[in-house]
């Protein structure tokens, strides 16, 4: 029941926001949106405190058929074997909590930025977040796909209606449509793959079902498995994004409003990482292991390429967007390495990148509100013109470059450590990314905050709301870095189960010719 609430509250709150705006005004809508996300966060926290997360959706030693902490399952379209089933384990919980937290912050950070049609804006934000939560707790492949697509439409509106038109750049509608077409068409390929998997299962067992737990051990030939896996991989690769499929991301980020960017980088990309962990590896362990070398090289390519491109950007948000590509490269690397350290590192990286990217995008938004530009060439010397903002800037930039003691370091370090055990070569090349990230981070710091100021006049500093947003993120980031135990405890069961599923296939695949 809690799961259903988790899902319904954002959708209901969104409708309410829209109606309130129509009848009363924007102010009420804002408070309702904030309250909605706060309630969702409270629910997630409640789940965290009350549940026992030593179980997982995946089959593990104690529970051969998989087991989850909370679940709900009612028939929906019986003719096609589709059930409305939700479930939760440690991995889902981490991501749901991240979504709710960033939801609160993204509502808060657009408090002043969005002045037109705020109610409708918040409806889109909340519906988008609702869809994302749905992705994280669906345990029926049809339902998963449904939420996967449902979250796109509100994001499309966010970019297309409240986005920025960059002077001299492409219009925001272009970015919005590009984002939608990339993700939706890749999603359709995944739908075909899902159907193929379901029919393979149906022909083997005579049961037509979309249930995750039933499809887990579908017997199929290696060739079939590989092709079906590729369909899933394509959808996740576009969403993550893995490098050859990344071109929608910088456009979407640079055109999106701040809240849109925060959600996009903080949670939307994470749905793909979740997809890899929850669906790709467990459903197709052997085929994933076959793909692993290619995917990992793509991940390494992403790390280096994203960092390289970030270095060359003049638009602060575009720069941060490219750093996301680089950070997501680590996730691909870690997922396909498949050792326990690497997988733990992936979950940490998911959380840490969510927080650090959100912080950087919020900062970019705040700078843009004050300076009316995000062009780094027009910034410089800002340290002297603010009293508090640049310190936060420095903090999140350091977090993003992987300063030890903060979450990103932990994530990237664990991923490299885990990868080194099995693929030392790739880990070494990937580690170059750490160096490059220092380069682009420091250059961002230098260009924005140091150097010769463009003007002397002090700019309005952070108000209490903005200060609170950034402090929250800072506290969470330090927490992740210094005391990660609670997070690892929650994610341990799923990662261990995943590792036991995937490791044999990976070892078998690696045995003949080790890198």
């Amino acid at each position, binding site marked *: 029941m809690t799961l259903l609430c988790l899902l319904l509250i954002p959708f209901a709150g969104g409708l309410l926001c829209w109606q309130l705006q*129509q*009848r009363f005004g924007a102010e009420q809508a804002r408070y309702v949106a904030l309250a909605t996300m706060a309630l969702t966060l409270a629910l997630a926290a409640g789940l965290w405190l009350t549940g026992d997360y030593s179980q997982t959706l995946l089959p593990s030693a104690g529970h051969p058929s998989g087991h989850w902490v909370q679940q709900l399952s009612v028939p*929906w*379209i*019986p*003719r*096609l074997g589709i059930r409305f089933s939700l479930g939760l384990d440690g991995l889902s919980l981490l991501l749901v909590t991240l979504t709710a937290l960033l939801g609160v912050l993204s509502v808060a950070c657009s408090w002043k930025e969005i*002045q*037109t*049609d705020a109610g409708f804006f918040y409806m889109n934000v909340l519906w988008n977040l609702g869809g994302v939560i749905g992705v994280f707790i669906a345990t029926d492949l049809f339902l998963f*796909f*449904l939420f996967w*697509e*449902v979250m*796109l*439409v509100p994001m*499309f*509106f966010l970019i*297309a*209606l409240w986005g920025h038109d960059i002077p001299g750049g492409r219009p925001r*509608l272009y970015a*919005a*449509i590009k984002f*939608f*077409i990339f993700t*939706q*068409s890749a999603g*359709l*390929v995944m*739908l*075909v793959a899902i*159907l*193929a998997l379901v*029919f393979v299962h149906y022909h083997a067992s005579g049961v037509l079902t979309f249930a995750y737990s039933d499809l887990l051990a579908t017997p199929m030939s290696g060739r079939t498995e590989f092709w079906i896996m590729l369909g899933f991989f394509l959808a996740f690769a576009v969403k993550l994004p893995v490098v050859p499929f990344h071109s929608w991301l910088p456009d979407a980020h640079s055109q999106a409003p701040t809240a849109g960017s925060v959600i996009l980088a903080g949670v939307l990309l994470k749905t793909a990482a979740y997809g890899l962990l929850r669906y790709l590896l467990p459903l197709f362990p052997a085929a994933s292991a076959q793909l692993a070398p290619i995917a990992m090289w793509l991940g390494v390519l992403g790390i280096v390429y994203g960092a390289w491109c970030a270095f060359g950007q003049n638009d602060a948000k575009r720069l941060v967007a490219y750093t996301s590509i680089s950070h997501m490269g680590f996730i691909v690397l870690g997922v396909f390495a498949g050792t326990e350290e690497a997988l733990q590192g992936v979950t940490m990286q998911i959380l840490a990148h969510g927080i650090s990217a959100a912080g950087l995008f919020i900062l970019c938004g705040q700078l843009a509100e004050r300076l009316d530009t995000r062009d780094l060439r027009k910034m410089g010397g800002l340290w002297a013109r603010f009293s508090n903002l640049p310190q936060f800037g420095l903090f999140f930039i350091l977090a993003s470059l992987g300063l030890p003691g903060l979450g990103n370091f932990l994530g990237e370090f664990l991923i490299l450590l885990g990868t080194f055990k099995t693929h030392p070569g790739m880990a070494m090349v990937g580690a170059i990314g750490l160096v490059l990230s220092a380069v682009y981070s420091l250059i961002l710091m230098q260009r924005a905050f140091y150097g010769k100021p463009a003007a002397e006049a002090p700019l309005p500093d952070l108000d209490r709301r903005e200060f609170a947003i950034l402090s929250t993120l800072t506290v969470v980031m330090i927490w992740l870095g210094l005391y990660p135990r609670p997070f690892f405890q929650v994610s341990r069961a799923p990662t261990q189960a995943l590792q036991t599923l995937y490791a044999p296939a990976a070892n078998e695949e690696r045995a003949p010719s080790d890198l």
Partner: protein
Amino acid sequence: MTHPELLALAPMLIVSSTSVIVMLTIAIKRHHALVASVSMVGLALALASTAAVWHVCAAPRSITALLIVDPFACFYMAMILIAALATTALSHTYLVRYPGQREEMYLLLLLSTVGAMVMVASRHFISFFVGLELLSMPMYGMAAYLVKERRSLEAGMKYLVLSAVASAFILLGMALVYFQTGTMGFGDIGARLGELTVGEQIVMLGAALILIGLGFKLSLAPFHLWTPDVYQGAPAPVASFLATGLKIAAFALLLRYVVDTHATRYATLIDALSVLAVLSIVVGNILALLQSNLKRLLAYSAIAHFGYMLVALIASGPLAAEAVGVYLLTYSITTLAAFGVITLVSGPLDHEAQALSDYRGLFWRHPGLAAILTLALLSLAGVPLTAGFLGKFYVLGAGVDERQWLLLGAIVAGSAIGLYFYLRAMIQLYLRPPVVPGSAAAAVPPPATAPAGFSGLRWARDAGGSMLIVLLLLMLALGFYPSPFIKLAQAAGIEPQALATPLTADRR
């Protein structure tokens, strides 16, 4: 004709007699609302009777050699009747502003509906052709109904000429098939085909000609050229019936014909259908990219959608008939809703809202209408939780089950292209009307013009508006809780009759 047979024909008889009553009513007194109400009542009665007939004819009931009433026929008749009901309601809203004679529209619509119903129940060339002509003839008049309007006349004229050509093709095709098989019943043709030893080419030629004719009616590429022009020129409610009633009848007939004659055993035919499907998907979606007129856009989108539907027909697996039923249902409801919004948004008659720019900012003027159009466009694009997704899901399922990877690739690619124009049309509804750059007004957001409370739903008070609400509810139901509809479509499946001779080796 016996009593149960008459009962089985009840839907058709009710609509036919309604048309007579409407004619008499017009003769006595021209009263727009009265005529429209009589037609609505007649159609609603017929719709109710299909449910009863469905019960009675759970086992297929043949009526003479011409017609067969089975759940399949009932399902599609019901769909046609829903389309006719929606069209009647929309026509009422549309024609209120028309200064000329309004009442004959309903008469033509009723006649056309009878024709469509005959088509879905026919199992013989004669009833096929009679139904088709009865469906098409009134349609010429309906398309050209606004006789003072150039675009309307042009649409009627164009449709008349091309439709007649298509009918000629179909007739010649029938003749050729009859020449070789000596029979005109679908089932018998199938049986004779199995026994044929010589002259298969002539039968194939005949089948090809029939396919071309039906391809024209279904506006499959490359026989689609008339579609955008006629959609654009015809009055919006007429275009909605053209896009739904006509297509439902033609596709249902095609499905029954293909299944009854076991046509899928001919690899050539399958190849031909595949080419038509891929062409329609590609041509429809790509040409839709270039449109700035909503009605033309819907026309091209219809071309693509029938390409998708053909894929299910080609797959011809156990899911095929059900997939076609679900797809046609979702497509029809969605299309009717889209045309309904066009009808309601249109201002005076000489200025029908067609250009996409007419819809700019509709959400801020009429949030309800814009929301319905948004839902319809998303549904046509096949986004989950809308009706259209269910249809697409079924078609993909039927394709995957039969491993039609090439056609599936075409669907995926087509849908990706399609997204672009649906989204472009959709976002227009939400953009604020343009402000002159540089003026002081540019900085200040315009005050919300949408009236608060339910006065925003004033458009929903007349017949067309309330019908639109019903369509909206149907769309939502199909998106969120499709099980009842799926059950109906499943029950309305169609099974080929067993053949006396076993299928020959040239089966795929």
